Structure formats: C-alpha cells, structure tokens
C-alpha cells in the first residue's frame, strides 16, 4: 500500500546527461545492394528458381538487403516483394539483437510459422538476406538443409567483382 509509485520491476529509462553529450559517431554504411545494376541478376535468379523447384511447397523467394530494400525476387502471387524484403530485414533485426544480447554471434536463420504457412529468413552475407515463403506443408527440414547452400552461392555472386566496372 505504501509502495513507492516510481518503484517497478521493469527497468526505467532515464536521460543520461553524460551519454547525451557524446552521441556515438556516425558510422558510414556501405551503399545499398538494391538497385545495383552490376549484380549478376540472371545467375541469382537461377539460384532462386532452383530453390523453388527443388522443394515442393515453396511459393517463392525474395532476396533483400539488410536495409530492407528489395534486390530481386521470384514470387508469383500477389504479395508485394518490397513488403517481404522489409519484413525479412525486420526479422533479421530481431535475430541480430538476440545474438548480440546472448553473445551467440551473427544472425543465421529465422523461421516464422503461421496457420497457413512459413516465412524463413536466411542470412546470405553481411548485407543481404534470403526470405523463402512456403505453404504449411513444406518440408522445412529439407528447406533448412538446402537453403544455406543457395544462400552461400548467392553470397558469392553478390561479392563477385563486376567485370565491367
């Protein structure tokens, strides 16, 4: 009854003058992969198509940057691939925070299962993510075995120095 009103089990945020005085230095970000015309799009599309054909129940794949911008996709339904690229980056953000807090290292993979299907997000490189949309009946174990290989090959394609630069 006499408990202090400001007392709570949850941590409270309070302004810290010392920290506010020295904001962290701005970190230069690498240019976004989205809209980069020098990327080998046909080869990337072949990898995405292979994943869709290899595993029954995969609707399509979206390759996006960690900045949430779409690089390319092979979705054939009415879902906006730009939205999915943004969602993939959101998932990555959560995974990265968990990894940082628990000291578990870099983000690798995250799967969301809903009533009607799956969204799996795989780390491709420091800068790119692969989102895979599957039906409820997709063989997730097979997807988890197959997708990292595809992600690795796409990572190699993304880092390949463009020939005409």
């Amino acid at each position: 009854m006499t408990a202090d009103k400001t007392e709570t089990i949850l941590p409270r945020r309070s302004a810290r003058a010392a920290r506010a005085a020295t904001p962290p230095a701005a970190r230069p970000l690498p240019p976004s992969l989205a809209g980069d015309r020098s990327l080998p799009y046909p080869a990337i599309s072949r990898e995405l198509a292979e994943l869709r054909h290899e595993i029954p129940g995969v609707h399509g794949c979206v390759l996006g940057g960690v900045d949430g911008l779409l690089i390319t996709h092979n979705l054939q339904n009415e879902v906006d691939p730009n939205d999915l690229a943004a969602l993939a980056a959101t998932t990555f953000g959560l995974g990265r925070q968990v990894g940082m807090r628990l000291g578990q290292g870099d983000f690798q993979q995250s799967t969301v299962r809903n009533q009607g299907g799956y969204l799996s997000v795989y780390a491709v490189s420091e800068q790119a993510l692969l989102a895979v949309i599957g039906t409820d009946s997709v063989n997730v174990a097979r997807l988890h075995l197959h997708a990292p290989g595809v992600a690795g090959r796409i990572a190699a394609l993304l880092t390949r120095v463009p020939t005409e630069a």
Partner: protein
Amino acid sequence: MASLDVALKNAMNIDGAIGVALVDYSSGMTLGVAGGTGEIDLTVAAAGNTDVVRAKMRTLEMLKIEDEIEDILITLGSQYHLIRPLTGRTGKGLFLYLMVSKSRANLAMARHQLRTIEESLEL
C-alpha cells in the same frame, strides 16, 4: 511405456541396426536420432524420407483406399530401410525410421522388434 531415448536405444539393439530416427513428417524435422555413421547424416535421411511417406499417403488418398500405412520397406544393395508411422494418440504425424545392414540383420525379426518398440513408445 518407453520414453523416446529408451525407444531409440532399443531400436539400436536390433541386430544389424545402423541408425534410427523419430521424424515429424509435417515438417521433416527429427525428434531424436541414434546411431548413424560418418557418411550417413540421419537428419538428411529424415527430411528425404518424409517425402516418401507423404507421397505414399497422397497415393492412398488418390486411390481412395481408406487404410493406413503400417510400414514401408526399402531394400538397398546392402541395407534395409524400415519406415513405421506411429499409431498411438501421442505419436500422430510421426514415423520411426530404421536403417539395418542387410548382411547382419534378420528382416522379419527387425520388423517385429520395430513394431514392439513403436507400440510401447509414449511421448
């Protein structure tokens, strides 16, 4: 009633057993594995054989055969692979996957023992 670990250990005691896995065929994920060799990754085998089980179930559906799979036998040159869906209330959507050496195993005995293990498995 045997727990999962006991069931997997009993399955590995079957003559000629190479590896065993309990697999969820809605996702292809394993709930437990025992045995296996350096070359054979049982999680890969589980994911692949999930498609075998699903294909057979779909076929039965298309043929309008109102029955269930008791077990599936796959005969290789040097091994037998046995797939046995769980029938208990708690085992819905799961199957046991057993690999045995053809030269060291007695197929009828292995099949019988796997049935006994399946019947006593409680999750």
